[in-house]
């Protein structure tokens, strides 16, 4: 399937595996890229720029297809070594960077000069327009369904995608709630040029996470995600567990007096314990509402092939019949 996104990134299918903390290692990105999508290495999961350079080199050993690196710009005082990471990306010959978080303007000229395509993650139409204005090549429009940080506007994709389509000139992918060929066709109908999947790619054979994590996704229903850190205006959609419910109880009882120290036990440094060690109650980890739609653990190739086959059947079968 050709779309503006496949053309822009030089990929076979309009499917991107968005950056995910402690999931987006070289194994994940290579598996998705080898299957015809765009795999993405998560920059900040690597401790240093040298580690990122090494991860990029490992990915290149596993695939000759295009892949990307996610760079998330955090609103923290002790900034990660962004210049070093940008250098590692450029020197590593990476073709695509997915930026997220704060405005990526500071690194954009360096990436563009190196011929790298930039896709920025946005949770609001006004942010997407800003990304377009500063020169991003594409945006990922993240609806309220999405795992991780859905922003504070709470606009699901049935509303957000057509709004984005009406306003944007640059291509965009739909992110949040994307699981199968049905979601791909729905996203295309609402004006997107492809899809971004996060949670769905965690439940694949190649995803380099503990088996307990994959089983937790299979067991989850559509009602099992929660929104945490809303009082900090840093909302994160996570899978519920004992730690998350404890965190939410603190948010309820402490109200406006809550500080980050109060919730640190449930959020600080928990990702490796959960995703690598499989300690499922160690804390909060990002998970989309789409977990309710995940019922198996295919390979990335099987997953992408069946999404494309199903999308084709829906468009040229079921929908075409109705319009005749």
């Amino acid at each position, binding site marked *: 399937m050709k779309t503006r996104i496949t053309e822009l990134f030089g990929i076979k299918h309009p499917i991107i595996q968005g950056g995910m903390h402690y999931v987006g290692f070289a194994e994940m990105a290579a598996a998705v890229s080898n299957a015809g999508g765009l795999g993405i290495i998560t920059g900040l999961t690597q401790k240093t720029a040298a580690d990122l350079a090494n991860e990029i080199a490992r990915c290149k050993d596993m695939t000759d297809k295009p892949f990307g690196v996610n760079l998330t710009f955090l609103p923290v005082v002790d900034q990660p070594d962004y210049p070093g990471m940008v250098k590692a990306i450029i020197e590593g010959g990476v073709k695509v960077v997915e930026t997220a978080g704060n405005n990526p303007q500071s690194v954009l000229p360096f990436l563009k000069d190196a011929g790298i395509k930039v896709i920025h993650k946005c949770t609001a139409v006004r942010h997407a327009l800003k990304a377009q204005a500063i020169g991003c090549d594409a945006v990922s429009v993240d609806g309220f369904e999405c795992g991780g940080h859905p922003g504070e506007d709470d606009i699901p994709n049935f509303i957000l995608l057509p709004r984005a389509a009406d306003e944007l000139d640059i291509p965009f992918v739909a992110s949040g709630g994307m699981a199968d060929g049905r979601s791909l066709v729905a996203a*295309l109908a609402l004006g997107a040029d492809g899809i971004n999947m996060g949670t769905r790619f965690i439940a694949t054979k190649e995803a380099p996470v503990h088996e307990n994590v994959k089983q937790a996704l299979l067991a989850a229903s559509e009602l099992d995600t929660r929104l945490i850190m809303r009082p900090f205006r840093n909302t994160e959609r996570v899978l519920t567990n004992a730690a998350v419910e404890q965190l939410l109880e603190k948010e309820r009882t402490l109200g406006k007096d809550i500080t980050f120290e109060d919730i640190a036990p449930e959020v600080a440094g928990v990702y490796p314990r959960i995703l690598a060690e499989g300690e499922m109650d160690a804390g909060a980890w990002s998970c989309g509402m789409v977990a309710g*739609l995940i019922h198996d653990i295919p390979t990335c190739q099987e997953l992408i092939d069946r999404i494309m086959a199903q999308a084709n059947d829906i468009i040229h079968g079921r929908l075409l019949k109705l319009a005749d």
Partner: protein
Amino acid sequence: MQNRITQMLGVQYPIVQAPMGWIARAPLASAVSNAGGMGIIETSSGALEEVRAEITKMRTLTDKPFGVNIAQAFVRDPGIVDFVVDQGIKFVTTSAGDPNRYCGPLKEAGLTVFHVVPTLDGALKAIAAGVDGLVVEGGEGGGFKNPRDVALMVLLPLIRSKVDVPIIAAGGMVCGRTMAAAFALGAEGIQMGTRMVSAAESPVHHNWKDAIIAAKETDTLFLNRHGPGPALRVLRTEKTTALDLNPQGDVRPEFANIRDLYFGGDLEASIALTGQVAGRIDSVKPVKQILEETIAEFEDEIARLCASYNAR
């Protein structure tokens, strides 16, 4: 266009008008039915005598099929079944309650029954109760809500994969593109609420229609997600902003003055139940135009998808 929904409901278009309390009365519902969709008369106002008169009026305004919604949380009178059967109604949607309560008697009387569901669990209970179809409502929609809101993008395909009955998608529905997306996810019909509130034939005060037209997609609030009291999706006003910041428990007393808002145009008098789709509505249009544009855009969108995207 023919599918299970048009056949079961006997309508030209698989588009249903949502049963907004006080608003889904004869002028609006007859306009929808006459335009080829399914007009619905509400009961959630609880004003059954008025509703009876509205149904009588419908007979003079349209010879097309129309339905009645039984909002179970608001209609406690079990005589409601005889009431709709006596009126010769053929299509009923039930909502806000146990689907077992009225499904049996309504089906025995030969009616087609759809139940409104916000979760997979709710859908499976309705199927067990024997309903003919489901109205699957995402968290996008306006009005009284399940506090654990699920977006239609996830809810529709999830329920579709577990049930065989036809599904009408509700929440966010406003145009042919949303209809095509809902159909891609497995719906066979769509229900429009806020789009119908802001239709030319809608009886509400123009202040509310103007507010819907002015609203951005960020101009609704989801009240009481963590309780207390029922959850609601509402238009952002001074009153609802205050209720959002300081939840007041049961908000139902706020609805005592609802007619001052709906028909008097005082947006601070009560709570205007409004979906997020308000951000995609930019003019008041006659119902017939809304339906015809939706169907035309739906067909255009499918043609565009077929022409643009070949996966092989």
